């Protein structure tokens, strides 16, 4: 199954939580959008990604 993560295609099957762990990100400090919509943290364990989903993982960086 193919999804897009931060603008790049990726082979992945599973939930949002599994995706974050597979790319070594700390779920505590991330927010996730699927197809442009924010998915609440409490849904990550049960939210199964579908073929063609566009996932953006965001967090805080230095900014003015």
């Amino acid at each position, binding site marked *: 199954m193919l999804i897009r*993560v*931060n603008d*790049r295609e990726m082979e992945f099957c599973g939930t949002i939580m599994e995706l974050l762990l597979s790319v070594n*990100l700390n779920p505590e400090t991330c*927010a996730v959008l699927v197809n442009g919509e924010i998915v609440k943290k409490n849904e990550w364990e049960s939210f199964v990604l579908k073929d063609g989903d566009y996932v953006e993982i965001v*967090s*805080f*960086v*230095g*900014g003015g």
Partner: protein
Amino acid sequence: MFEIGGKILKSRLFVGTGKLPDYSLIEKMYYEAGVEVFAVAVRRIGPNTRHTRNVLEYIPKDAVVMVNTSGAQDHREAVKIAMIGRELTNSDWVKVEIEKDTKYLFPDGFETLKACEILVKEGFKVFPYIYPDLNLAKELEQIGVEAVMPLGSPIGTNKGIGCEVLLKPIINEVKIPVIIDAGIGRPSHAAQAMEMGADAVLINTAIATSADPLRMAMAFAKAVEAGRLAFEVGILKEHEYAQASSPLEDFIGG
């Protein structure tokens, strides 16, 4: 001490964390320069991005996080970034920064107003970055933003207070706090902003890109304090001709 956005703060120096050579400087600025408010941005992180570290891990827990919507091109994007920010931090302070042009990074007043209307209704403490435009500042005050953040000069230019004649009316006429944001390059510029009656300043580039960001933050903290104190005492009028400081009579004989 002053009250802003539902918080009581001691420092009127707000600091942006972009371009810092090392995020561990944030904690030092908090403890050694007394900075209490830190601006941060929301960006993609992880695979296929430049960013791997989360700046929030470096901000002391008692400091205030101000989420900047920079990168937003219109009010919808700004609202989305604010929502993400609140989801991640529980901080409801949001700096609304919306720019379409990337050469001057001038704020889009029309989109900013629309975003602020939505965010105030959503319960955010809203801090819009704007041109020094009195009419817009008054509109924003009406809809319930916490403060306005007019620019001193374009972001990152270090040119200082380029438009005193436009900023002063905002300071005089709006009742909410005025934070001069952008373009302040030196501590003396910050002192000038405070002498004019600004309630606070937000500095990023001038501190973050200096040779020693911590010591520069300390210099800004002192300048902000000095300028504010002078404003509270009352700045004296200028005179056309010399006004002798020593008495002009009873000179000793020649």
